[in-house]
């Protein structure tokens, strides 16, 4: 079938098999930040935005993205860089494989709630697994980023 969508701000038309998953479609279209970590919708590595909402691209049909806006980390490089530097300050990126999904969902959280408490951060990002960092360094980085933004940031 044919789908058309807005991928990272650009109109994309493509022929796909009906049961193609969005994650595979996106990787085929150069969005290699989108990673697969499980087959059971549990890990959060494949998080992308569909009409600005964070979703698991492993669990969305590409067909369902027809007529919608999809954003991946490739389209959010500026925000990723600004926020990511605070995670790098902690060394909490570690192996990095979960980072794109975590960064995407953190950006979603900041847009929804620019000043979350620690508990709100943990709850919002609970669906982003990380096996390396133990999460505490990510939390420190997120906190530092929030403080920086509160002070007006350099954006």
């Amino acid at each position, binding site marked *: 079938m044919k789908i058309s969508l807005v991928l990272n701000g650009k109109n994309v038309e493509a022929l796909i098999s009906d049961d193609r998953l969005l994650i595979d479609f996106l990787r085929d279209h150069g969005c290699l930040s989108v990673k697969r*970590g499980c087959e059971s919708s549990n890990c959060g590595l494949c998080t992308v935005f569909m009409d600005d909402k964070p979703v698991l691209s492993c669990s969305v049909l590409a067909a369902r993205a027809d007529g919608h806006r999809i954003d991946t980390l490739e389209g959010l490089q500026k925000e990723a*860089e600004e926020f990511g530097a605070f995670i790098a300050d902690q060394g909490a990126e570690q*192996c990095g*494989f979960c980072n794109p999904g975590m960064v995407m969902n953190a950006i979603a959280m900041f847009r929804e709630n620019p000043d979350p408490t620690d508990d709100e951060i943990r709850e919002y990002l609970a669906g982003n697994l990380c096996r390396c*960092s133990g999460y*505490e360094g990510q939390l420190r980085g997120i906190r530092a980023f929030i403080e920086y933004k509160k002070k007006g940031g350099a954006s």
Partner: protein
Amino acid sequence: MKNVNQGIHKKDAMALLMGKPVYMDDLAPRDCLIVKVLRSPHANAMIQSVKTDAAMKVPGIAAVYTWEDVPAERFTMAGQTYPEPSPYDRLILDRHVRYVGDPVAIVAGETEDAVDRALKLVKVQYEVLPAILDFRTAKDNEILVHPEDSWRSLCPVGADNKRNLCASDVSGQGDVDAVLAECDVVAEGTYHTLADQQAMMETFRTCCYFDAYGRLNILSSTQIVFHVRRIISNALGIPKSKIRVVKPRIGGGFGAKQTVVSEIFPAFVTWKTGRPSKMIFSRTESQTASTPRHEMEVSVRVGATKDGIIQAIDVYTLSNTGAYGEHGPTTVGLSGHKSIPLYGTPRAYRFAYDVVYTNVMSAGAYRGYGATQGIFAVESAVNQLAEKLHMDPVELRLKNVVRQGDVMPAYYGETAASCTLDQCLMRTAEMIGWKEKFPCRDMGNGKVRSVGIAMAMQGSGISGVDVGSASIKLNEDGYYTLTIGAADMGTGCDTILAQMAAECLDCSTDQITVYGADTDASPYDSGSYASSTTYVTGKAVERACGKLLEKMEDKAAELLRARYAADVSGAELEFDGTRFLDPATGESVTLTDLGTASMCGSQEALQVTETHSSPVSPPPFMAGAVEIELDKETGHVEILDYAAVVDCGTVINPNLARVQTEGGIVQGIGMALYENVQYDKKGHMMNNSFMQYKIPTRLDMGRLQVEFESSYEPTGPFGAKSIGEIVINTPSPAIAHAIANATGLWFKELPITSEKIAMGLLKK
């Protein structure tokens, strides 16, 4: 120091955070054949026949291979230095399948759809055999996991395939039984830990292709490029000269990628078909057909005088290596050799073990590598000893803890040249509020808050075996290239090795670029495992930089002599990181001058390769303490606070060391409380996904506090030891201790689920 002991950004941090394409599947050629394997549904069976014709007819299928198509020479997939202690008990595909998940056929095709369809069409007839699923029954069982005559063990590890023994040994000092008989108090128990999965976020994956020279290139998510080269050569029966192995960024390893799990199948396909191919393990395969921690049952007896001086420690470990022996003979050793030496006082110790084959997934290397299992047992026993002695477990430990300068008989007789374990313990107790909180407080509503504590050690590389190497080269513009064979798997070794180089060369870490690991380009390195990279490879970096500096000084002196007719030798020059100054004349040459000169009419390479191996493996030490809130009705354990203090010698990068520690603690918390590996009666591993195998989320781990009490290790680079593995060792015993302090029940089997706690309390 400007570089060492600084929390410098990891060199690849921003690329990783911004989702750049740096992992194997981001870099694989686009036209790779997709490789998958058909796996045995039986725990023990002989293949009677395999019909592949229908599968071959699926459009897009390039090849289907069975046991009849592969070499008959056995090998091991364990990434270890040759001759490997792990037995040669594998074939690429074997007619005898030994666990649910053992590969039966390899299918390669143009698309994943085609391969999936073909897999369903491979028809296999099995003669199903009885299986050994309980490792307690394996030794001398009439069912043999490896009855074949072609099985062989290269090292004297006490292996005997006709007894299902992968290894067996006894060692010790003094008469343990006699000393224990004299003890006022003896604590004993048998402690059972499961085959936990490393569960790194990036599953096992490899792609292969031929290069312009007709050589098999293997791009793999591995910790051990050089061992992969040898193992592929052994498995395929092809010369090592025909193989190149490269690792890209790795999405986590934790030891899992110290075994050749995914490499063999695409290597075989590409070698046979000439086509690029790739294999990406599904999460299900990573959970069920990989290389998890060795299940162990560790029996401990610890005896002490009534005033709490430990006199003897007796440890017997039964280890389950599963269907194949990868890392079986070596992991078990750490269960005693890296638990008993935590105590300096014993007059006698004994450490015995058996490692047995069973019909479950083969175990392998997982962070902690046997020490984790042994430390859970010994530290739990010591906590029980404290209870029996009515003594504070911190005080008991302070009376007995190994101290700097002590000889450690159970640790191969090595001396603890650097050790602040006593300080780690005291500081940890302080951080958790031990004095106020031990043992517990009733919070009302059936909730109890309690604390628990444990100590740990590990090694720093494998003494006399591990080899670390580094090449360092000066380029034009005066920047350096550091080439290594160690594998950064997210740990940050590329960065910390660069920090060390920068420290030696008096420049900024940014001035050092790092390349590795690549069997063609990197100097030989055993690889990143056994907590070796900082300590072993780091020393090679230090030495290489020292020698390069000498060479640069000589070259600088040569330039000065030529330019200014100065009568100066290299040794007389002063180097500030950017220029070599002749203090006598005030003339100098810059690094840029040097780099440029080395590229014009030069007879001398400004490049040095150094190799290092250490005759000792200095242990890092650590103490960890936990505060929990336990719900006596539901058995739920909430981790409130985890305090840890580590002595890893000089901390090269405090940020990365801290995050290593935090990550290890959280993995350990999962292991202690809910990471559960369950097999059904037919040997199917049931926790085959992240839906069924629960690793901690950020809601499950409480607050972590990490500090360092650095000793100075004289044999380490800048005084450093290791940190990668030790950090997973304290949570299990500390949490079991806290649970005991809350409930009065000692749990000796992991994970300690809320069910076990609640039902235990009901039956109390």
